[in-house]
């Protein structure tokens, strides 16, 4: 187990290096010049040259990459071109919001997903099964910006229960979390349904049933734990995906997370910021996946690593 973990950790290094090269190439390949964006073309050539020099953009690409990589190793992604503040600081400011939103939407997703999945599995091929699965499918079939706006209209505009935008009260977390969590819930529902069905068919469950245990109890005692294993990996993926993928929901709800920071950075050609965010997102992605894999081994006795 330890050897496996160490081996996996070692494999992360080349992945992250490649990601850093890729993002570096991408930001230099995309048309658009951060100096131009900053000065909006109204600057003088002297200003542009000075800015280019300050930003180190007048150096050869290889040197720029070297500087970027060396600093990044030390957790320093340079300063944002747009705001002039350290990129790591800006990311640190946004990360808690992203984590909050991710955590909250996962709670929604798991709660909703497991309930739907369990109903569906217990009532296999009966009306509740179909209803639950249709509901689950509906969740992933809605465009999130549309769903988010409808939620705002209902809960924030007509009912006035929750704020429409912002991140200042606990209530403001609910709607974006529900919007994001719904599509993840659909996936969890479908997955937990099929793994529960599979588990319920197994010998030990039949035994438990034969002993006269109530269906819910059977499910709770024996089914759930086993069914949760595949769900675990989905959660990992979702968590990682949310870090880069919540852009639209963050925009609709005015949530100050990393996704919006990333989009703004792309539109402003804020090179250090884009690089920093992509690297942080990639690191979290691989770390979460590693953690999930290791967790897998802990909860599922059938998996052994050599």
């Amino acid at each position, binding site marked *: 187990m330890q050897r496996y973990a160490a081996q996996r950790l070692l*494999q992360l290094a*080349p*992945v*992250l290096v*490649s*990601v850093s090269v*890729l*993002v570096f190439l*991408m930001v230099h*390949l*995309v*048309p*658009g010049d951060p100096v131009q964006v900053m000065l909006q073309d109204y600057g003088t050539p002297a200003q542009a040259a000075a800015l280019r020099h300050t930003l180190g953009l007048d150096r050869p690409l290889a040197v720029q990459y070297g500087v970027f990589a060396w600093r990044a190793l030390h957790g320093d992604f340079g300063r944002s071109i747009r705001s002039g503040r350290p990129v790591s600081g800006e990311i640190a400011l946004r990360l808690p919001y992203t984590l909050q939103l991710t955590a909250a939407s996962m709670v929604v997703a798991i709660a909703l997903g497991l309930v739907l999945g369990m109903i569906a599995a217990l009532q296999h091929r009966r009306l509740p099964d*179909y209803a639950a*699965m249709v509901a689950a*499918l*509906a969740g*992933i*079939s*809605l*465009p*999130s*910006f*549309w769903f988010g*706006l*409808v939620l705002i*209209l209902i809960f924030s505009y007509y009912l006035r229960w929750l704020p429409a935008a912002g991140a200042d009260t606990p209530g403001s977390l609910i709607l974006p979390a529900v919007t994001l969590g719904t599509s993840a819930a659909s*996936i969890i529902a*479908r*997955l937990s349904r*099929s793994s529960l*069905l*599979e588990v319920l068919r197994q010998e030990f469950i039949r035994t438990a049933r034969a002993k006269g245990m109530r269906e819910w109890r059977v499910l709770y005692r024996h089914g759930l734990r086993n069914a949760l294993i*595949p769900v675990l*990996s*989905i959660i990992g*993926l*979702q968590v990682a*995906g949310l*870090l*880069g*993928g919540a*852009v*639209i929901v963050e925009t609709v709800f005015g949530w100050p997370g990393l*996704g919006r920071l*990333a*989009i703004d950075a*792309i539109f402003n050609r804020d090179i250090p910021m884009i690089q920093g*965010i*992509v690297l942080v*997102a*990639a690191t979290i*992605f*691989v770390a979460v*996946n590693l953690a999930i*894999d290791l967790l*897998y081994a802990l909860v599922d006795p059938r*998996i052994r*690593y050599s």
Partner: protein
Amino acid sequence: MLSSTRESDTVEARAAARPARARSHGAIGLRRVARHRGATLGIVLVAGLLLLSLLAPYVSRYDPAEPHFGARLEPPTAAYPLGTDSYGRDVLSRVAYGGRISLVVGAVSVVVSFVVGLPLGVAAGYAGGRIDDLIMRIIDVWLAFPELLLAIGIVAVLGPGLHNVMLAIGISGVPGVCRLVRGNVLAVKEESYVEVACAVGGTAMHIVRAHVLPNVLAPVVVLLTLRLGTAILAGVGLSFLGLGVQPPAPEWGAMVAEGRTYLQQAWWVSTIPGAAIFLSVMGFNMFGDGLRDALDPRLH
């Protein structure tokens, strides 16, 4: 390595990931699909929308792109069965013609994912060793790169528009396909008949074509179907950000985005294309689920 337990890393892929052991998935599979209620409903939904798009010129009485400023935001009436948008364009016509764009975006980008992902997955799974390692590391990097950022980056480099959007969505779908295919190839490779084929000296090409591919096909088809819905939604998201199909083309996502500022006055402008998106994605998902159930012997 853990790869055999984690064949695939995309969400849909996981849903589709179980290697199909059914040998004769031809006729039996199809019959099962036909009997599967969800799959049937899915096909009906998709076919309905497809038909609407194909018959767009007959369904609609109006040019989907031409504004009629005299008839802005008309509610649904006999003249405009689904109302008009803020330019006075018939929503029914736009939804019908829009299907040609949105469904094609979904289909083509999925094809892109498979054209790239399938050979990569087969190569990795079948060749194993160094090649496998190399391909899987590339896929790791690909996955670690935030998907939407990748798509936006691609569109930013190539410019907005239908072709680049399909390319961007297609490319971001490659890792999922690759992983799924690889996992299934690994499983099939262990089967005795493949070992036999190897032993009697079949060429790699022949073995892959004759034995590996047919057996990987089932989960691939399932993933393909599920992926269609995701791709349509991705196209919709890019339209929301202004990077998608350019106006006045009636793309569903663009229609929803454009109409949503009128939601309180004229619900139909964005709700109807929204429903079209919803139904098509749902249709593909139901069909994909049904297909998987039908092809997975363990569920029978």
